[in-house]
C-alpha cells in the first residue's frame, strides 16, 4: 500500500475514533458493502479475461464507512478490491475517501479522493446492484481503462440548483489528479502502442465537470460531462526494437530491451453527452462519447512518434422492470477507435478498428440483498480486445471478427 494511502487510512480511522469517543449517541457510523462474483465465457476472442476458456476472474468487493460529523459535514471511506483477468488481482485499494461540507443545497465542497464523473453511470460502475447490466456499454465505460476512470484525488464542488419551472440542475466539478497503477488495466491497455512495460504514470492536473439537467418533462434528464487531463508514461522496452534497412544485414537493432521509453499525452479530453428517460418501470438511455488524445512517444534519441487517437462511441439502451424480482435490459453500442476511419481501413485487420455490441440482460432480484444476472452479447469487431490476450500458438495476434460473450454474475450487498 502506498504511503499516501496509509496517511488516508490513519486520518480516517482517527476521525471515526474521535467521533465515536466524542458523541456515541449523536454520530453513528454507517457501514455498507457489496461482493460480487461473475463468470464469463466467449466462443472466440479473449475479452477482459481468458474468456475463451471461461473465467471466474471476474469479481469485486467493497466496504464503506461513513458518518455525519455535524449537520453539514460528512466523512467517509470505501475500500474496494477487484479481479478482472490479470488486472486488479483483488488488491485492496481506497476507492473513495473524502470529507464533505454541504454549505448550502446549491454548494458543497469535498476534499479527498472522490468518484470520477463520466457520463451518467461511471460513479456507480463498481456497484453491480445499481444497474441492469453486468457490463456497461464498453465503448464508454471501458473496463480497459477502469482504474484511470475510477477516482480523482483533489477538491470537488457540487450542488443542486432548482430552476422552478425549468426543472433542476445537478452539477459537480473536480480538480485534482488520479492514480494509475503500473499493474492495472490502463497499463495493460497502453501496451497497444508498442512493446513496453509501464513503470510509472504521472497524471498532471485533471479537470472534470458534470452538469445534469432534470428537465420539466417528467422523467427526462440530460447530461454532459467533460474530463480534461495530461498523462506522462515512463516505460521500458520489453523487446529489442528492430527496423528494416536497405543495406546488409537488412535489419538494424535501434534500441534494446530495457531501454527507456516515454509516452506523453499532452492532450486527453473526453466529452460525454447523455440522455435518460424514465417512465414508470421503463428506463431508456442513450449516451455518446468523444475522446481526443495525442500521444508523443520517444525512445532514446530516435525521432519522436506522434499519434492522434480520436475515438467515438455511442449506445442506446432500454430496460423494463416487470416485477419486484425481474428486469430485462437491452442495449446496442458502437465504438470506433478512430472516428475518421469507421471501417478500419488504416488498421489490420479492419475489424480491429471498431466494436459493435448487441446485449441482452436478465436481472433477478432474489431479495433486496441478493441479485443474479445473466447476460449475452453478440459482437462484431475487436477494437476493445487486448492484442496480447489474443495470441495464437505462434505468438501472432489472431482474432475472429464475429463472436459472442456470455456472462453470469451474483451480487450480495448490505
Amino acid at each position: 500500500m502506498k504511503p499516501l494511502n496509509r496517511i488516508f487510512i490513519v486520518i480516517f480511522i482517527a476521525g471515526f475514533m474521535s467521533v465515536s469517543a466524542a458523541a456515541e449517541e449523536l454520530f453513528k457510523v454507517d457501514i455498507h458493502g457489496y461482493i460480487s462474483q461473475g463468470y464469463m465465457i466467449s466462443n472466440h476472442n479473449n475479452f477482459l479475461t481468458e474468456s475463451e476458456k471461461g473465467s471466474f476472474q471476474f469479481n469485486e468487493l467493497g466496504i464503506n464507512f461513513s458518518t455525519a460529523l455535524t449537520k453539514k459535514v460528512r466523512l467517509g471511506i470505501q475500500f474496494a478490491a477487484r479481479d478482472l483477468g490479470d488486472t486488479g488481482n483483488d488488491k485492496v485499494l481506497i476507492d473513495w475517501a473524502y470529507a464533505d461540507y454541504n454549505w448550502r443545497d446549491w454548494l458543497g465542497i469535498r476534499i479527498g479522493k472522490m468518484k470520477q464523473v463520466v457520463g451518467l453511470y461511471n460513479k456507480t460502475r463498481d456497484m453491480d446492484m445499481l444497474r441492469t447490466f453486468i457490463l456497461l456499454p464498453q465503448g464508454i465505460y471501458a473496463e480497459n481503462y477502469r482504474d484511470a476512470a475510477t477516482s480523482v484525488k483533489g477538491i470537488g464542488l457540487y450542488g443542486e440548483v432548482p430552476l422552478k419551472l425549468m426543472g433542476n440542475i445537478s452539477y459537480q466539478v473536480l480538480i485534482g489528479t488520479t492514480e494509475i497503477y503500473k499493474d492495472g488495466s490502463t497499463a495493460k491497455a497502453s501496451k497497444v502502442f508498442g512493446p513496453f512495460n509501464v513503470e510509472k504514470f504521472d497524471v498532471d492536473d485533471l479537470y472534470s465537470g458534470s452538469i445534469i439537467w432534470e428537465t420539466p418533462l417528467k422523467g427526462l434528464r440530460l447530461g454532459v460531462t467533460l474530463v480534461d487531463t495530461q498523462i506522462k508514461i515512463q516505460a521500458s522496452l520489453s523487446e529489442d526494437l528492430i527496423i528494416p534497412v536497405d543495406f546488409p544485414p537488412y535489419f538494424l537493432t535501434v534500441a534494446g530491451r530495457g531501454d527507456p521509453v516515454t509516452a506523453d499525452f499532452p492532450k486527453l479530453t473526453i466529452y460525454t453527452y447523455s440522455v435518460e428517460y424514465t417512465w414508470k418501470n421503463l428506463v431508456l438511455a442513450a449516451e455518446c462519447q468523444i475522446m481526443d488524445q495525442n500521444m508523443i512517444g520517444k525512445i532514446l534519441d530516435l525521432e519522436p512518434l506522434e499519434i492522434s487517437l480520436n475515438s467515438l462511441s455511442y449506445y442506446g439502451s432500454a430496460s423494463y422492470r416487470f416485477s419486484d424480482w425481474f428486469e430485462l435490459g437491452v442495449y446496442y453500442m458502437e465504438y470506433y477507435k478512430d472516428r475518421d476511419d469507421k471501417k478500419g481501413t488504416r488498421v489490420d485487420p479492419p475489424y480491429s478498428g471498431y466494436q459493435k455490441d448487441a446485449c441482452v440482460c436478465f436481472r433477478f432480484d432474489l431479495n433486496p440483498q441478493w441479485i443474479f444476472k445473466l447476460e449475452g452479447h453478440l459482437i462484431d469487431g475487436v477494437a476493445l480486445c487486448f492484442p496480447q490476450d489474443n495470441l495464437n500458438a505462434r505468438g501472432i495476434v489472431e482474432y475472429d471478427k464475429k463472436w459472442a460473450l456470455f456472462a453470469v454474475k451474483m451480487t450480495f450487498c448490505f
Partner: protein
Amino acid sequence: MKMNKGVVLIFLFLFLGWEGKFIFSKMLIITHPETHVDSLEKKEIREIFLGRKKSWEKNEKITLATLKKGRAHKQFLDRFVNKTPFQFRNYWREKVFLGEGESPKSFETEERLINYVARTKGAVGYISSIKTRSVKIIMVIDEKEEK
C-alpha cells in the same frame, strides 16, 4: 387465434398489471410538531425525499422517514417523487455507497413511522390517513378533489 389472445392477455397483464393507475385516496405529509414549516409545494417534497433539500428554514436538518413497502409507499413515490419503490431504493443506495448521504429511516408500519417523526426533530414522513395529533400535518393531497 386462441394463442394470440393468450399472448395479448399476458402482455396486458405485464404492462397494465404493474402499471395500472392507482386510485389516490388521502396522502398526508407529516413533520415533527416543532418544524418551522406549514406547507410544502409538491416539487419541494420531491427535492426533500431525494435528499436535494437537506434543511428546513432556520437551518434545521431534515430527517427522512419512509415506509418500507406497501400501497401507501408506492402511491407516495409515484405521486410525489416520480420513482418506483425499486428506483427509490436504488437512488438512495447510490448515495449511501458513494458516501453522499444517509438513507432514509424506513418503517414497516405507519404507526412506527408516526412515532419516529413525533420524537425526531426535523423529521418528515408520509401516511395514508390521520391517526394521531402527535405530528404536524403539512399537506393533505386528495387526488379526487384535485381533479
